[in-house]
């Protein structure tokens, strides 16, 4: 009996070891990518199409957890050790300068002609360029958008607001009329994490202010930035934004809005398709528009999304580039958009007939994404963000005034940036 068991174990081991290199001379290309809800299955299909087109290569899809920080940490640990375990990987839009400076990304300068590059949205391209060189190719794009309950706005004869003041007025009118204590006027991502910086940046830039100026110097305590933050806090104090906005991440806001408890919500485009699936409480009641702005300024949408880059230590860089080229093609991007709802990084796909028919809000979205601004393109961004997350959270939870918190943030940011100059 015991001997039999040993035979079974040994033959099983042999089987496994054959599986590892049994594909007979094919190049193994490893593609690392974070899990995005519902995406992985379809991604495998797309990868298979690439393999059919290129019989010499076997692409291994390796999925990382969906939490961005964990992916960041994974890449840093393995790249710092010079790992060549993966060839192509998906990078969050804020990592490119950091990884490029560290020498972990293969430069992609000159791989695409200027004409080809012009097909991509300008925001992500800017974020993927460091010191004048392109280090990654935009794969799919995200940008903050304003979701609103079209049915409620129509019921109260309110036009979708263009300005924050207009939004406040509209929310107040509807909340008064509905008389439902559960109904919140406006929510955004307000938990102390990266999402808070993304949300707040839209208020700040929407008031003609910013975090860094063009020369890379901090300007976060400008009068207009303080005004924008104070406005966010005022929304909570006036009961337009619920107090729980200090706890919300993307999914928490999506669930509250999807449950019919919210009139206006700032979120990424992914939620739209979920709201319109069968069984959703807000099906056919949701519309999307560009984020509001303050009087006299323009709307800003924080750029998110994922880029494809090549591991500097990869041993299959030619295949890696071929793969990136394939993933950023018109046809591939169209399929990803139609089947998984990812937003293409190419401008031309947004006017695709099939896509517009299926997702009519694409045209509106393109306007938003054309205005999308990267978070400060700086290798210091992670440190900057850590300070801002805490300071913005202080303002929203009422432990400091906007002025005090941003003055302190300015001091900290100046220290960070001046440390090496």
């Amino acid at each position, binding site marked *: 009996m015991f001997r039999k068991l040993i035979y079974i174990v040994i033959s099983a081991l042999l089987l496994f070891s054959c599986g590892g290199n049994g594909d007979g001379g094919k190049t193994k290309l490893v593609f690392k990518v974070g899990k995005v809800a519902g995406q992985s299955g379809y991604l495998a299909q797309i990868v298979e199409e690439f393999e059919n087109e290129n019989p010499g290569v076997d692409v291994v899809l390796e999925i990382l957890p969906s939490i961005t920080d964990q992916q960041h940490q994974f890449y840093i640990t393995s790249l710092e050790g010079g790992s060549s375990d993966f060839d192509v990987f998906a990078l969050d839009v804020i990592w490119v300068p950091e990884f490029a400076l560290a020498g972990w990304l293969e430069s992609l300068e000159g791989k695409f002609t200027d004409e080809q590059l012009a097909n991509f949205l300008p925001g992500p391209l800017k974020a993927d360029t460091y010191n004048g060189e392109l280090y990654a190719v935009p794969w799919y794009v995200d940008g903050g958008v304003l979701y609103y309950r079209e049915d409620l706005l129509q019921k109260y004869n309110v036009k979708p607001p263009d300005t924050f003041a207009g939004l406040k007025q509209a929310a107040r009118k509807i909340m008064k009329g509905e008389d439902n204590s559960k109904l919140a006027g406006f929510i955004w991502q307000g938990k102390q994490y990266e999402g808070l910086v993304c949300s707040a940046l839209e208020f700040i830039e929407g008031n003609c202010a910013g975090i860094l100026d063009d020369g890379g110097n901090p300007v976060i305590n400008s009068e207009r930035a303080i005004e924008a933050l104070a406005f966010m806090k005022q929304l909570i104090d006036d009961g337009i934004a619920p107090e729980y906005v200090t706890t919300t991440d993307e999914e928490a806001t999506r669930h509250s809005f999807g449950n019919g*408890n919210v009139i206006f919500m700032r979120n990424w485009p992914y939620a739209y398709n979920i709201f319109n699936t069968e069984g959703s409480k807000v099906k056919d009641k949701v519309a999307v528009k560009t984020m509001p702005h303050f009087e006299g300024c323009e709307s800003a949408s924080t750029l998110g999304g994922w880029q494809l880059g090549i591991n500097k230590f990869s041993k299959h860089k030619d295949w890696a580039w071929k793969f990136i080229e394939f993933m950023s093609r018109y046809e591939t991007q169209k399929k990803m958009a139609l089947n998984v709802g990812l937003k293409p990084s190419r401008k031309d796909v947004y006017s695709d007939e099939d896509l517009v028919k299926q997702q009519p809000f694409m045209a509106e979205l393109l306007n938003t994404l054309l205005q999308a601004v990267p978070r400060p393109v700086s290798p210091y961004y992670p440190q900057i963000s850590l300070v801002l997350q805490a300071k913005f959270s202080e303002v929203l939870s009422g432990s400091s005034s906007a002025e005090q918190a941003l003055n302190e943030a300015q001091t900290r940011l100046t220290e960070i940036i001046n440390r090496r100059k």
Partner: protein
Amino acid sequence: MESRFGYLLIIPALLTIAVVAIYPIIDVFILSLYERFLTLGIDEFTGLNNYLKLVNDARFWNALKNTAVFTFFSVSLELILGMAVALFINRPFSLQGLIRAAVLLPWAVPTVVSAKIWAWIFNTDLGILNYALLNFGLIDADLNWLGSTGYAMAAAITVDVWKTTPFAALLLLAGLQVIPDDLYKAASVDGASRWQKFRHITIPHLKPVIMIVLLFRTLDAFRVFDAIYILTGGGPANSTETLSVYAYKILFQTLDFGYGSTIAVSVFAAVMLISIGYISILKRRGGLLS
């Protein structure tokens, strides 16, 4: 000759400890004397600069305060509740095995999973806690559990207590079972009340176990990371940011390895002090280690 052979035999064990415990500790200490940013290409020796920075870092002191508050309340509650649970399941009753296993359930769930579940329970708008409290008429409006500086720490402590009380109960139960029954019988003959038996038999006999529970739980609670990271990320306004959460952010989000290591060393030093304190009490009281 024989003693030399004995030393030879423990070399593998010593080597293992040196490689997995002592080397990393020394390495972190050395790192704390450097300014090192892998992604920025900065790597230079700066002596005690990082420690100077630590002393002047308000966020560090805030994190230390939060850690102390968290540790004190969660460990005290765990000991009290764990004692109650242990006394309860120590008595013979039907379904004893089943109940004992059920009590351990929270301890068996990975912290990440239980923290995520609790985050939804505490969700202000959609969570079951507010729903229940509202329906029972205990509150008039939703409470902002994880989002107000007043409640967030209490919520985090609740999650830790829920999770680790079974651990305390388990150790205390083991302690209860080695107390000889004769003592209680003799006390009964002498006419002792239940409280007197608890006060004069149970507590003195349990003392070493209680100290062990306190030691383990204090060390664990002092390094709390996962539950808080998932529940609140340290917010709002850093009100739940503990030393480990802060160290994690500095080390892994900003990649400031030098300063991050400095915070880690401070956690290590604090944990060492706590251990030494407990162990010396244990020794003085003539507990397990005497």
